């Protein structure tokens, strides 16, 4: 195919990187279709699909009726027919009407058909808080999906990962839930010339004294924490989990074997969140290396608060530093 668009050059926002990645998937594979609420003319409420309908036509980039079960359920049918649908869920809190189709159909049909049916569906979900939104626009529902068999779940923290991971997710023959940290949509970064493996965690800052594990919107916060801690003479290692299912804990286990200390950070509510599973796996694999209990810094087990309170609710630099202090003082 001629005219494949290039990897974005220079500083790029995450929103633009996602747009470029999606454009590339449309160019590469005529079976890719993009579907969702307001993704056509408007380009999505976050403009992630900006200009794609204009360039690829209404058969390939189209607005659906306003019903999430319908969006996911028809994507299943399109996939059975040989298409490769990319669904946009407008906001995290609106995925639940489609939850049944995701858990009972998207995650299982390959298994139900003994491998005959492939469902290469990507479900993009802008998620997380910190943007001063009203109710249902700041949720972190990733653990519902990581708990469900047959689904892959990933999240990006940088424009570079956004670009490469969306391309890799769409190319995957299994269904992928792709969580986009909406508060990072406008943050800028360079896009790497080559991708890393999709389902692997990455060490984004090496360190010796304590490991901080974060993903999505919290990776940036964890890096800030490491800067502050460095001023106090503490050398933190920061790992970006990236792949929530399959859960890649190899990097964190290897890291904790060296540092002996782990703080896990996520926005989602604490109980039965990803942090619980990570802590369980780390203590199983690195029990004798641990010098302190594994600590979690997360949202509280309450509904997401009104936006005037969200800075209190969300893990922030101070709360994470507090956990770092407690772990190192143990």
């Amino acid at each position, binding site marked *: 195919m001629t005219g494949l668009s290039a990897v974005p050059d220079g500083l790029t926002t995450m929103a633009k990187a996602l747009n470029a990645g999606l454009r590339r998937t449309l160019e590469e594979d005529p079976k890719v279709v993009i579907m969702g609420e307001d993704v056509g003319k408007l380009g999505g409420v976050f403009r992630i699909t900006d200009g794609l309908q204009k360039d690829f036509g209404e058969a390939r980039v189209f607005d659906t009726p306003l019903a999430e079960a319908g969006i996911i359920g028809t994507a*299943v049918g399109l996939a059975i027919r040989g298409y490769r649908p990319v669904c946009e869920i407008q906001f995290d809190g609106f995925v639940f009407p489609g939850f049944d189709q995701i858990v009972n159909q998207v995650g299982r049909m390959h298994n139900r058909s003994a491998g005959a049916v492939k469902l290469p569906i990507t479900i993009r979900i802008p998620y997380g808080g910190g943007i001063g939104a009203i109710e249902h626009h700041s949720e972190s529902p990733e653990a519902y999906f990581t708990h469900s068999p047959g689904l892959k779940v990933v999240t990006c923290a940088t424009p570079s990962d956004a670009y490469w991971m969306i391309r890799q997710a769409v190319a995957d023959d299994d269904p992928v839930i792709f969580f986009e940290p909406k508060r990072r949509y406008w943050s800028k970064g360079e896009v790497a010339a080559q991708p890393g493996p999709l389902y692997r965690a990455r060490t984004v800052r090496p360190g010796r004294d304590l490991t901080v594990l974060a993903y999505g919107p919290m990776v940036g916060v964890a890096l800030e924490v490491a800067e502050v801690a460095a001023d106090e003479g503490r050398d933190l290692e920061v790992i970006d989990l990236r792949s929530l299912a*399959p859960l890649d804990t190899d990097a964190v286990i290897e890291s904790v074997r060296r540092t002996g200390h782990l703080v896990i950070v996520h926005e989602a509510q604490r109980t039965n969140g990803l942090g619980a599973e990570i802590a369980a796996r780390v203590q199983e694999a690195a029990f004798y290396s641990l010098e302190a209990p594994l600590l979690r810094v997360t949202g509280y087990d309450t509904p997401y608060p009104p936006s005037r309170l969200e800075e209190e609710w969300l893990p922030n630099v101070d709360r994470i530093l507090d956990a770092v202090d407690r772990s190192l003082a143990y």
Partner: protein
Amino acid sequence: MTEHVRAVQPEPDMVQLLTPEGERVERADYPLDITDEQIGQLYRDLVLVRRIDSEAVALQRQGELGLWASLLGQEAAQVGAGRALRSHDMCFPTYREHGVAWCRQVDPLTLLGLFRGTSVGGFDPYTHNFNMYTVIIGAQTLHAAGYAMGVVRDGAVGTGDPDRDTAVLAFFGDGASSQGDVNESFVWAAAENLPIVYVCQNNQWAISAPVATQSRVPLYQRSAGFGFPGLRIDGNDVLASLAVTRRALDDARSGQGPTLIEAFTYRMGPHTSSDDPTRYRLGSDVETWKLRDPIARVRAYLSRSAGFDAEFFAAIDEESEQLAVHVRAGCRALPDPSPESLFDHVFVELPEDLRRQRAEFADFVASVAS
């Protein structure tokens, strides 16, 4: 419940081409070009399908199946619709469409695996253009709409080429008509003018809930609010089912959009082998519906008006005996899946952490065995 309902329309018209007594009815709006030999073939389908069903009921009682959902009474609705399909049309069933599966040449043993617990579906929908059974009520209607969207994008509608133009047939029950998925599927079908035909088998019951629990209006009228036609057929009349589904599929293939067919029928047996219908319905209703049996009327027509003799019927009975043997023996011989298969096809390629779980499982199984 029903007494609160104010009548909004008279009793609906119902397309019937063969009366319960076996008299042919001609209708100008649904002409049926069919020979007596072809009606004889439909009779064969009906008898064999009922035989598969009764054999499965028996196998369940003998403990060979964990569960069975009988289609008794609904053979005509299913065989008529199934025989209206062309081979390249796609079909999305519930869990009760054994008669449609038969018309799609799915081996009955494949269906039994699901009910015996040797598989969770386990067949390739592309081989027969018949999707796997769907247990979640209504979910398949959205898959059908999405598939139809793919058909449209493939340019396989309204070309006039009979080998290319494709329709999608989606089944659901009267209970399912309340599900959001079914209603959303209607929204999509209407908005995109999809080549889809819905067959709602109104068998009067959703487990113990009568159809009045679901709807104040006859179900076929639901489509009007969405903007596409709906009609009711005598669901115990295989000729009506064939003629009306055929026409609706033709309309779909030629780009005229969706149709809802309400096949008015009756679930003669329990909801499934686990159900006890004496707790919620009258035996006299069942007796009334016995008089409308889908098979007896075809037999009456064939012997009285088409001159089919005892030999014809005896041959089919013989074939049905052989089929029963195949089902019985085949069911008992269905192999249990191997423990290692637990992890098969969870993903196209098993990710590393699941490979580790599989190894852990295999080690444990081996350690217990040794």
